[in-house]
């Protein structure tokens, strides 16, 4: 009777680290190359980015301001990625969250309701708006057979168009609508910030709560286990009795709510009005963070922080080095590409290793 537990071909931890380190090195080299081609001094550019990110307490706090929406979006995406969904539509879900929050604030700002209540309602409206937008992608997928990537992409365009229409149409500033957005809300309806900084402790708290929630959901609940089962083998999960359609839908709703909350926070705590680029691309960036963190909650926290730091650090590049601030985007993109490349290389290397072991057996 030959029933042995097959040894899993598993390279040592050092090899894993080696691959990861190599990808970071390659991303750095690539970015350096881009800088050299652009005629900028690479070392000085990197120094400026570091200086820009950590040069003062105010800047360091700004990193957290960027980290909050990024982390909210990433937390939501960890749910959809676990269920095997590519929720590209997260970008539109942020936008709809921002629109819903703005709409609610505009409706209630003239009333005598206490400002904290209005703010809480606005954040809740944001979550509802994002979730509703995500549910459209879910309905399209489950009942229409539209892949969530295409559904999400289409809905993103609709969301972008909708925000422009609102800003230049029904919600335009008295006189003339402009790209600078809607009329700012009165200061009493701003989410309170720490003295001298732009960081709202409430927003920070919500982001931390969202991570904790997703962490517990994925680790300790049947909801998380079922999502994981669906993501890894939807067919078998169905046969084993998991109601797959319902859980796919719930994963999208959860992600949409968190993305919508991020949008609402951008409106209430950062910009205090609706502006066309309200999502700041955090949706797409969140996808990159989740991928780079290998879809793990714990890793996504520092990765999101790193990305936020790159974004903040490169803000002053245009002033100091006459470089565009999109350098951070180049670095982030390169990093993700090289990490994915290395994952591919590692998988290949591993299967080769397994094949060789198989030959010996």
């Amino acid at each position, binding site marked *: 009777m030959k*029933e042995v537990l097959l040894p899993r071909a598993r390279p040592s931890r050092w090899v894993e680290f080696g691959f990861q380190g190599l990808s970071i090195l390659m991303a750095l080299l690539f970015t350096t190359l881009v800088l050299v081609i652009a005629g900028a001094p690479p070392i000085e550019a990197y120094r400026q980015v570091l200086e820009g990110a950590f040069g003062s307490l105010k800047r360091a706090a700004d990193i957290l301001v960027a980290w909050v929406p990024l982390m909210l979006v990433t937390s939501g995406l960890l749910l959809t990625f676990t269920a095997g969904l590519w929720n590209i539509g997260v970008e539109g879900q942020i936008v709809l969250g921002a629109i819903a929050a703005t709409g609610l604030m505009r409706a209630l700002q003239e009333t005598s309701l206490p400002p904290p209540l209005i703010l809480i309602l606005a954040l809740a409206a944001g979550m509802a708006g994002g979730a509703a937008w995500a549910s459209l992608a879910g309905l399209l997928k489950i009942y229409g057979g539209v892949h969530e990537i295409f559904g999400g992409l289409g809905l993103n365009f609709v969301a972008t168009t909708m925000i422009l229409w609102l800003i230049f149409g029904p919600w335009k500033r008295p006189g003339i609508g402009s790209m600078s957005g809607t009329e700012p809300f009165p200061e009493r309806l701003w989410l309170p910030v720490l003295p001298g900084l732009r960081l709202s402790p409430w927003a920070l708290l919500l982001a931390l709560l969202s991570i904790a929630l997703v962490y517990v959901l994925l680790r300790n609940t049947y909801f998380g286990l079922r999502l994981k089962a669906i993501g890894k*083998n939807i067919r078998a999960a169905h046969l084993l*009795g998991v109601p797959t359609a319902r859980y796919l839908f719930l994963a999208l709703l959860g992600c949409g709510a968190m993305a919508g909350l991020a949008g609402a926070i951008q409106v209430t705590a950062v910009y205090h009005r609706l502006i066309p680029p309200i999502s700041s691309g955090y949706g797409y960036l969140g996808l990159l963070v989740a991928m780079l963190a290998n879809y793990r909650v714990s890793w996504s926290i520092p990765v999101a922080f790193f990305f936020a730091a790159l974004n903040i650090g490169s803000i002053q590049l245009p002033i100091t080095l006459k470089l565009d601030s999109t350098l951070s985007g180049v670095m982030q993109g390169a990093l993700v590409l090289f990490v994915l490349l290395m994952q591919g290389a590692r998988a290949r290397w591993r299967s080769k290793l397994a094949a060789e072991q198989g030959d010996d057996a």
Partner: protein
Amino acid sequence: MGNALLFPSPSNGRVAGDEIIRFACIATSLDPVAMKVEMRHIYKSFGPVRALQDVSLTVEAGTIHGLLGENGAGKTTLMKILSGYLRPDRGEIFLDGKPVRFASPAEGLRHGIGMLHQDPMDFPAMSVLDNFMMGHEGGFWLDRRGARRALQELASQFGFDLDPDARVDRLTVGERQQLELLRLLWRGVRVLILDEPTTGISAPQKVRLFDTLRRLAGEGKTVIFVTHKLEEVEELCHRVTVLRQGRLAGEATPPYSPQRLIEMMFGRPLPMPERQPVPPGEPVLEIRNLVVGDHRLRLSRVSLTVRSGEVIGLAGMEGSGQQLFMRACAGLVRPWEGSIRVRGKDLTGKPYHAFLEAGVLFVPANRLEEGLIPGLTLTEHFQLVYPNGRYLIDWEQARVEAQRRIRDFNIRGKPETVVEALSGGNQQRTLLALIRTPAHLLLLEHPTRGLDVESSMWVWRRLKERAQEGAALMVISSDLQELLQYCDRIIVFFSGRISEPIATEELTLDRLGHMIAGRGW
């Protein structure tokens, strides 16, 4: 120098229309080069499953050579190796005495070996002509006009009626096969492999196919015909090689003795152990006038009652309709007509979850594709099926429970072992451990496939226990011996035809083998 004519080098770039036609004519009728195929000591494993062990095959040039065997015997694997789709773990291939090694099907095709797969590997949304040109090495530009003329020329030669502009998904299986055949001929194949080509095609199409194959062999092509149907071997093949469970079982030449071929396919009959008859219980499954079908098969007006404690075997070659039937009973395939009742409750047209709640449990054959979830541990699997809470998982308790189930079901693994790291037998035992209780109707596809004798016996003991506890069982298996040994009644499927349930006492291995191969109905 047939070679140069047959295989215009890609550097020639675009081939003019006339040339293509000339080239096609040469390829189909004037080809002087027939090819002898030898495969020596081929081994192939898929993970822990040994698909082929020390199989050798010699096919003489210009003959039709049958490759016979039941499902899982390794026929398709052997042919995929020959055509370059798979690489052997060990063993050599010789074409006309020269050793070759293919890295891809395209390379096999360049050496003149083409395979017609059981499921058409075409592009359904594209036109016949586009499919015909697929993979043609004619440089960058498409020569539609030339290809159209070549297609029409070839089609008329063989009497096929194919509209070049029709979309492939509108064609019948037989027409798609004709198209693929012409495409391979146009590409200049000298060895043509057909894998179960008569499944799903009409009777006139079959006659035409056989005529075509005889003509091709007469013109010097080497044809390898993979089948499980005895009468096709008798009708068509100059020689036949039989495979059984991944090994060479024997060879034969006409006149064939069906008796011997069946023996080679299924092994020698062993003496049967005594079986005690089960007292019939309450009806669990009642099927009335069920009609169910897919794109190639249709089962008509099936009625069946299965009682508590009964074990029903479904016998037949893969794809004869038994999988379809079982999946309809599981609520996975919606029947077109008729009714399904389980313990008196009408479940016709209800979703799978309703069947599950009614105690109908389906255990699929492909363990890692449909049965288990690679990447999840044993503990996680057990928690999916037997949650010990409503929202929160108590992992400590879950581990203890998993340990108990692992012990109960004799699984060689730890609670934190991921299922893909288990051997086939342990995966199967895990599947059995995942069957919920109460189970009133158990539907199992190939529960012992790939298991050694000891593991198979263990599985059957467990299944029989379930039957004694009052469950009704339906089991698909290609091991006839096993069906005869453990089932109370057996239903035979052949190309969508379905027999009455036959009491096992009235069956012999011989009769069952004949029926499966389509004889003695």
